[in-house]
């Protein structure tokens, strides 16, 4: 029986087996490029998506486990924000905009997980301190060393949504 999942507001009937990690359904079936394969071990965070608003690691989450729940990927953030704020779906999520304004990425490969985690953080805590930002982001790895730029971008996004 096909597993039906809800990704970025759209229903998708997955061809994959129930134990297939969500990441491969997102990338290989839905052709989404936001979530990245990084480790397959939930160690780095490159694969992160929102599941009912919480950050999860899609590389270790079986697709069957997200049935009946809302998955939001990097690609779905503008629409998520538009749905909440009544803004245009064409506009970027304020966190994405802050990432551009602060020119955060170097290679950019980890930034999917960083942005997803930042969105989850700001939804929960609209005005986090630097210390809280670092605690919230600590389980995401960046090889290039963009940590300071990320902290600046999260503070900028917090201001923008104030």
């Amino acid at each position: 029986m096909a597993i039906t999942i809800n990704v970025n507001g759209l229903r998708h009937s997955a061809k994959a087996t129930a134990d297939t990690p969500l990441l491969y359904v997102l990338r290989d079936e839905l052709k989404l490029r936001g979530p990245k394969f990084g480790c397959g071990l939930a160690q780095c965070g490159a694969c992160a998506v929102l599941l009912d608003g919480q950050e999860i690691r899609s590389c270790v989450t079986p697709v069957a486990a997200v049935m009946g729940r809302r998955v939001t990927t990097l690609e779905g953030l503008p629409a998520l924000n538009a749905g909440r704020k009544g803004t245009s779906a064409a506009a970027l999520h304020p966190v994405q905009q802050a990432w551009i304004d602060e020119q955060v990425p170097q290679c950019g490969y980890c930034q999917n997980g960083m942005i997803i985690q930042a969105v989850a953080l700001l939804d929960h805590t609209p005005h986090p301190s630097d210390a809280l930002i670092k605690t919230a982001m600590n389980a995401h790895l960046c090889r290039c060393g963009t940590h300071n730029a990320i902290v600046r971008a999260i503070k900028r996004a917090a201001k923008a949504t104030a």
Partner: protein
Amino acid sequence: MTTSLQQTASVAVEEKTFDRSDFLRGGGALIVAAGLPVAVWPSGAGATSETPQAWPAEVDPSKLDSWLAIHADGTVTAFTGKMENSQGNRTAIPQIVAEELDVPVANVRVLMGDTARTVDQGSTVGSLTIRLAGPQLRQAAADGRQALLALAATRLGVPVSGLSVKNGVVSALSDASRHVSYAELVGGRLFGVTIPVQGSGRGFGLALGGAQPKAPSEYTVVGQSVPRVDIPGKVTGQYFYIQDVRVPGMLHGRVIRPPGLGSQLLSYGKPSHGARVVRLKNFLGVVAESEWDAIRAARELKVQWSNWAGLPTMDKLYSYILDTPNVQDAVVSNVGDAANALANAPRSVNASYTTPIQTHGSIGPSCAVADVKDGAATVWSGTQGPNDVRSAVSSALGFPLANVRIFTFDASGNYGRNGADMATVDAALMSQILGRPVRVQWSRQDEHGWDPKGPATVHQLQGGLDSHGNIIGWQHEAWIPAFFETTVIGSVLAGRTARLPSIHLWEDPILYNIPASRQVAHYQGDIGSAQNNGVGLISAWVRSPVQLQATFASESFFDELAAAAGADPVALRLRGLTDPRMIAVLQAVTKASKWQTRPSSSAKLRATSGIARGRGVATSLRGGTYNAAVADVEVDRKTGRIRVNHIVVAQDNGLTINPRAVKLGIEAGVVQTVSRTLYEQVTFDRSNVTSLDWHAYPIIRFKDAPTVEVILLNNPGLPATGSGEPSVNPIAPAIGNAVFDATGVRVRSLPMRPSWVRAAFAQQRA
């Protein structure tokens, strides 16, 4: 080769969004701008209706069309053999080209790394892109402007001296109503112009001639902080990475590597999940229609390998290096009679420094797609050196070079030669064996285990002081077990050994005016290679190879001499420096950090319990780029934990193309180097690497990342030098010097882990 590649698969990613075949038709008369948003424009292209016979063995640098295309809509494509590699080349190169052509920078795009379309400008390594390829592209653009002006002069009936250009429109100075656009002159057509060239791009020695480029004083685009064109796509999920490439009919492949470097494949069982086994001698993998099936089948396949245990034990690594015969000894520099000066110095200091094996640690494991059929290979790679990997694929497949075409896509930050080239050869081998397109995605364990490693090094230093505390003699010997080539593991396993150039040259100068000094390098084969037919712990470049290690040793040792002389570390450096640019960067960091002049380490200021605080300084010169750094650290005397709070770093790289991008790149590189200084060390047993994930090979996290202040000294009148590597060099010694300042303990080994620091405290108390 028998038939054509006319049915060569198109890259399935976003086929509907744009038509790559139009974009790619560069070999013919027409090049059509695809009109893509720059942010989603991939490095290379994918679909081609060209046959392999149309792939040139080499792209001719003397043709202007090899460098530039003016499209019918007036937009411009610049072609380069260089890659993005994380640090902004995709933005800086259009700035350089737009500046010379007098077109809006937003109208210039860059196509990177397609071996049939872009000139070989050498691999994207060594912070050489802006430094060496920048002038090549600048000259090509200047020549393009000259060619366009000549066409305009004919069209308008006005001599070139009577013309001006603005935004890609040529106008008569005497009558502004007489004008013609670049698009009208050559849009969609070839220039057909030959330009003077000398030297070879492969050897980083290509020089173009022709028109006189602009003077830096005229620049309006170069030197501006143009927002990076790759960033919008990177924050929205629209950017193409090599991991996103999909080809119709493609199988998902996974490699299965031996447990020991020299293990032989004895037998294997039946694959699970409908997968197929791919095997050539010791080269083993599985392929499946679905990625998850390939992953599970690779994990579950029962394989028997022979034992191999030819590596030294890890605790003997450094003595093993000192005991191993050198392949080559080189005198790096020699001034005066260092041996005599040291023998007769009133005071002398000796010390040994060691640095561990380190890995690239790319967040995205390497990936490649290959379609090998009819005697030709079309390969999509995340390489930093498309022409290098083209040679490796050609050797591994037994194909002539001309029958291999490499398209490149951006990859996860590599910071040297990570697994990208190896995965590329893996994909090519699997596709050749199966006759179908194959995508090989390395696992985390593959990348941590089998990406070539930055070699461990050993340094022995001797310094002599006169009675006034002046340094009168200096000797630095370095042992570097990495020698000129990187072995491609898949090709070795398949019995078709291919190697890539990977010269680990120690070439950083002694910065100080010392009357007698000598630097000697001892190069060796890879660790364990003598025990396994030349294939040991495979080495390759990791960011600032050799110099990061050598500068850690030399700039730490300089501080040892300062301490022995009772001198302030900045003051003693300033006494020995003669180059005004180096003096300027050192003064910039001492000013910004409010450096307090005093000798290190002051026993009065040292905490004997709790948290000790200190600061350290270091300088470096790499490839013409000057750097200095001051680090502020805290050391927990109980746990031995070092915390780097803040680093001030200054850089003079001559002309800066994009100051904001450079400063952000330096900031990131400094944080990465703090990680390499404090945490990173590849572990191994007698058989192979054992640090196979992020727990076993930790890197820096948010809570430990220091803040960084970057000072960029503006020097637009001097040629642009590199930026990615140079600023990492003073970081480790600045931290080590700060630890000494705080505690009186000298750290002579990387990484500076708490256990080592605790042991040093115990020794200090004893």
